[in-house]
């Protein structure tokens, strides 16, 4: 036995214990796992658990809990001990789930079609008419049969006698299958020995079948499928991006789509691209502000009409939320007999819909035994546990129920089964609910072998991810190793596949985010470099160095600077140190390094389905790289900054070597070049505003920031002088941190963009030509006694020595050029926004409606 690991506070016998009948010896299908856990021991399990947690954090697997004080993105919580289900038992569950899915699908078809079941009295009319999820505009609209319930999720619980019961059906836009997949990846990785030796049925075939099922909804050749998400604020956004990536579909928000000529199009940087199938994670009511909820910002205006015209398929079909209510459960046995000629295999947990007089009377007489829930989706009603209802509220509650009884449904409270959960070094028993998924392939149903096991918190037996519970992997143990990957309805593997090199158009929203990701990564690097070159000097420098440090700080162009205004008080090192500390550590300050990195993480997270796992990992590490501890002194940051810069270099390495040169990469690179050019321009303007000779240490800082000290030293064996520094940072086209280099690449990148604007391209070329036409050799830096002796090696020799006035005039000209260029750079950024991204941001306005 595993008494050494197992410390349950629960009594055996009160509920079904998954792993053991008597709390001592394991059930046969648990024996191998229990043996293995024991042989591995608590210490090793603890180590692996820590590893799992780190991996979850680094992969950014999150679940958003609305109004969570811990922040919007809560790490996903997972337990490493899988829930085990033997093959024979699974076959029963599977057939029950398939029967239920068939039945519910037929029910939806009738309710959105002829409504015979209502006329024949098999389905109560009040359950239809009183249900806010009944979407009348969809009645009579022809959609493919297998889109009504493309996917159904069923929540299953096991009662103390070992029988499985259905707690709830999710027919709207079932969530969790992506988390199940991620749980499987993590757990099989952490327990490879156990996974390999347990004959666990694989999940991947289910998702391949899902991809094929979605594609088959459209009759068009090579149809485009998108996954419609409410956006990064949604509780399961991580899953949306994870599934989109896994299934190979574009992840889109409502604003990315538009309806033209009764067809749905995706707004991409190449223009509009037709969408054939929408896998939706937006509740159906919110999918079309024109015909459904007018206040929805998540949908696509005209979607219902496009569906009615047969030009787009949506899975699950709009309106499928109608039967998500538990109120239908009492009618399912009768409907199964009528529609399928079969008895319901998996019973629903005892349910009373108060719209029926006899049920209502029973509920009112037995209120303390049930939990009362809203029968229809409405805001503001939490489940009411009859046993916990205070006497004072009881009367009012009963009156409300009796006024509109059809709006209430009561269910028996279930004693959930418990399974072992690894918690702080021991195994505990926790209540579990299994959510499994049935997929309508159009050619029969497929059930995911296993699913998502949700685990109750320590107290109580309410299982809900929204309430902060965690989850487990479910392993269905095949009878023999050959059975783990068999899926009959799969497309044969040797069917020829059409090769395609040209990627599909990148959604405008993705291009927008890629562009800003490039800008913010580069911005982080510039801030980090500037700060790193200042930090060591703030403490050790002479008073005379202060102006040069302040100039460097000026390059940050901080709008939130903590430095006193120049004309008020003399600036001191103390003030500068405080300012640097704020830039390094203040997460509230919008332009601090931690805020900028947080922005990188936010933008990266919103296009995570487009970024590689390595890149997401780096982004996660970047974010934690600059999370200072309270005791840190200024000098302690030096190491953190260097580490941060190393991560940023790794990021740019991935960017250069590991990303396809598609539109996404183009926009990210343009963003990076633009941002770097803006910073260099600012820095150079600090030189072209003539520097006093005593401030020339600024030049050294600047070369350091631009990583160009070596270049400089290898060319000029002299002390630092402004003109050669200008040459290295402005005109040296071989220096990847020079302005010339940035402009040249901007032109190159912009030339590759689809639908580019020639005027803009011309203005970029012109700016580069002007730069290259400048004769730096001819410039004389003010107050310099003699011109530089060792000039620019090439082409400079023949230059006539200009008169002093003309030369300083030329310097002013360069200064002005840089000023104009900075404005140009900003205007190019705006141009890209309005040409490629803006239509992803415009929201239609509702007029004349019933808002």
């Amino acid at each position, binding site marked *: 036995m595993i008494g050494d690991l197992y410390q349950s506070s629960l009594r055996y016998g009160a509920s079904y214990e998954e792993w053991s009948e008597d709390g001592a010896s394991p059930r046969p299908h648990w024996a191998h796992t229990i043996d293995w856990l024991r042989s591995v021991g608590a210490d090793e399990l603890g180590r692996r658990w820590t590893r799992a947690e780190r991996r979850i954090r680094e992969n950014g697997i999150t679940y958003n809990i609305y109004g969570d004080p811990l922040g919007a993105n809560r790490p996903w919580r997972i337990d490493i001990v899988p829930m085990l289900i033997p093959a024979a038992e699974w076959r029963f569950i599977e057939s029950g789930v398939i029967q239920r899915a068939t039945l519910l699908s037929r029910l939806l078809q009738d309710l959105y079609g002829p409504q015979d079941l209502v*006329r024949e009295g098999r389905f109560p009319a*009040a359950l239809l*008419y009183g249900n806010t999820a009944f979407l009348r505009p969809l009645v009579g609209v022809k959609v493919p049969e297998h889109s009504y319930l493309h996917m159904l999720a069923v929540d299953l619980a096991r009662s103390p006698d070992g029988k499985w019961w259905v707690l709830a059906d999710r027919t709207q836009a079932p969530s969790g299958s992506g988390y199940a997949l991620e749980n499987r990846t993590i757990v099989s990785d952490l327990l490879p020995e156990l996974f390999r030796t347990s004959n666990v049925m694989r999940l991947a075939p289910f998702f391949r079948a899902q991809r094929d099922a979605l594609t088959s909804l459209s009759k068009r050749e090579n149809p485009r499928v998108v996954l419609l998400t409410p956006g990064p604020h949604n509780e399961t956004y991580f899953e949306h991006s994870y599934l989109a990536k896994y299934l190979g579909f574009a992840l889109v928000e409502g604003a990315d789509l*538009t309806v033209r000529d009764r067809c749905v199009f995706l707004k991409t940087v190449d223009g509009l691209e037709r969408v054939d199938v929408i896998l939706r994670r937006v509740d159906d009511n919110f999918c079309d502000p024109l015909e459904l909820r007018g206040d929805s910002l998540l949908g696509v205006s005209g979607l219902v009409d496009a569906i*009615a015209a047969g030009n787009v398929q949506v899975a699950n079909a709009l309106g499928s939320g109608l039967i998500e209510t538990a109120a239908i459960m009492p009618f399912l046995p009768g409907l199964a007999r009528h529609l399928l000629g079969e008895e319901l295999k998996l019973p629903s947990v005892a349910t009373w819909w108060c719209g029926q007089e006899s049920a209502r009377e029973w509920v009112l007489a037995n209120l303390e035994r049930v939990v009362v829930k809203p029968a229809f989706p409405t805001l503001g009603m939490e489940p009411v546990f009859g046993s916990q209802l205070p006497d004072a509220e009881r009367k009012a509650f009963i009156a409300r129920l009796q006024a509109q009884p059809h709006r209430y449904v009561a269910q028996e409270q279930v004693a959930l089964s418990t399974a072992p959960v690894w918690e702080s070094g021991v195994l505990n028993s926790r209540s579990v609910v299994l959510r499994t998924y049935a997929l309508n392939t159009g050619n029969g149903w497929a059930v995911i072998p296993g699913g998502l096991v949700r685990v109750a918190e320590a107290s109580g037996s309410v299982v809900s991810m929204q309430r902060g519970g965690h989850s487990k992997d479910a392993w269905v143990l095949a009878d023999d190793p050959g059975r783990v990957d068999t899926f009959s309805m799969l497309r044969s593997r040797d069917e020829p596949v059409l090769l395609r090199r040209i990627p599909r158009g990148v959604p405008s929203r993705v291009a927008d985010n890629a562009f800003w990701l490039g800008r913010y990564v580069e911005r982080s690097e510039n801030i980090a470099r500037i700060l790193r070159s200042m930090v060591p000097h703030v403490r050790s420098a002479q008073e005379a160095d202060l102006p040069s440090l302040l100039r460097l700080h000026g390059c940050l162009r901080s709008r939130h600077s903590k430095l006193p205004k120049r004309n008020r008080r003399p600036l001191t090192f103390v003030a500068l140190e405080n300012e640097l500390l704020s830039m390094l550590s203040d997460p509230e300050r919008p332009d601090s390094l931690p805020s900028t990195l947080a922005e990188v993480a936010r933008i990266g997270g919103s296009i995570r389905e487009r970024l590689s796992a390595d890149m997401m990992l780096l982004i996660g590490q970047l974010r934690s790289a600059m999370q200072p501890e309270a005791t840190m002194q200024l000098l302690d940051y030096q190491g953190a900054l260097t580490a941060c810069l190393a991560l940023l270099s790794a990021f740019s390495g991935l960017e250069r070597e590991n990303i396809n040169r598609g539109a996404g990469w183009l926009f990210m690179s343009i963003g990076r070049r633009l941002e770097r050019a803006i910073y260099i321009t600012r820095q150079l303007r600090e030189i072209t505003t003539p520097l006093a000779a005593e401030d020339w240490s600024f030049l050294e800082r600047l070369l350091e920031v631009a990583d160009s000290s070596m270049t400089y030293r290898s060319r000029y064996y002299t002390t630092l002088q402004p003109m050669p520094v200008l040459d290295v940072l402005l005109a040296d086209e071989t220096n990847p941190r020079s302005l010339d280099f940035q402009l040249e690449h901007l032109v190159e990148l912009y030339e590759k963009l689809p639908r580019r604007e020639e005027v803009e391209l011309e203005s970029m070329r012109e700016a580069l030509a002007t730069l290259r036409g400048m004769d730096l050799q001819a410039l004389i830096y003010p107050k310099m006694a003699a011109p530089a002796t060792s000039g620019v090696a090439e082409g400079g020799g023949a230059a006539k020595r200009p008169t002093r006035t003309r030369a300083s005039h030329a310097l002013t000209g360069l200064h002005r050029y840089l000023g104009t260029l900075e404005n140009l750079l900003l205007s190019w950024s705006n141009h890209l926004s309005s040409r490629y991204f803006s239509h992803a941001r415009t929201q*239609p*306005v509702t*007029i004349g409606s*019933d*808002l």
Partner: protein
Amino acid sequence: MLYKISHRTTYLYKYPVSVGDHVACLRPRSFPGNHLLHSELHISPTPRVFSERVDYFGNTLSFFTVQESHEELVVEAKSQIESTGRKPRSQRDSMPWEDSARSLAEDRSTDALEAYQYQFESPRIRLRADFADYARASFLPERPMREALLDLTARIHADFRFDSKVTTVSTTMEEVFNKRRGVCQDFAHVQIACLRSLNIAARYVSGYLRTYPPPGRPRLIGADASHAWVSAYSRELGWLDVDPTNNVAPTDGHVTLAWGRDYSDVSPLRGLILGGGGHTLQVAVDMEPVEATSEFAGHSIEEPVKQ
């Protein structure tokens, strides 16, 4: 009475609108007592896409999309309708209202199911105990349905002030009920909520009301407005129309355009636009009787009030 009706809606936008998706509910229904002879819809600029569907309540909805840049949208519905008013199934009024309401829930005939759906809450109608209490002063125990309904209509007419300044399309019915003032749409919503709170099926009717110029003055073209009233279901008599704004049971002076659970199902023209930056709305309704008529057709002796 035969009418030529023109219903013209104009949106003037501050800035150009690049795309506008719209739904119009401007095709009048045709049924005994409201015979549609002709209907046409003119839209400017000409929409790129136009399609029509009959909605769940039997109204014809026109969907159209203007895909060219425009600063003005004009939608004009022209129709010819012969109205004699809805004839009740019989002149008797014997069934107590409670029996009428109760038995509807158990009847699964097509007519009964069609009526039953108007017994529930809808986007703009909440069922509440205070609405039921207000209605019970008219719906006394065992009182025949029509008698009670007309009494409630008269009470709403008397208790509520017509006031176009206090409400907008977004005013909730609860506010109207508390303030005791509003326009025809609000009156209709209040009465529907009162009826449904007693489990009586009631629907919202949009349409037009004939108006009369002051004696000796010509009829002003385009000065009319769209109107709204209520239809309640009696098991004995079928649908009974009442107009709480004017305290009348509509006959040939009312022309029905559409009906639904409440205003949100039948709003005449709504849409989503890209751009625009603010707009002004003008609605001009003209209802021209084709044959001469001598007196106002209705039960009221008061001047009818339009929206």
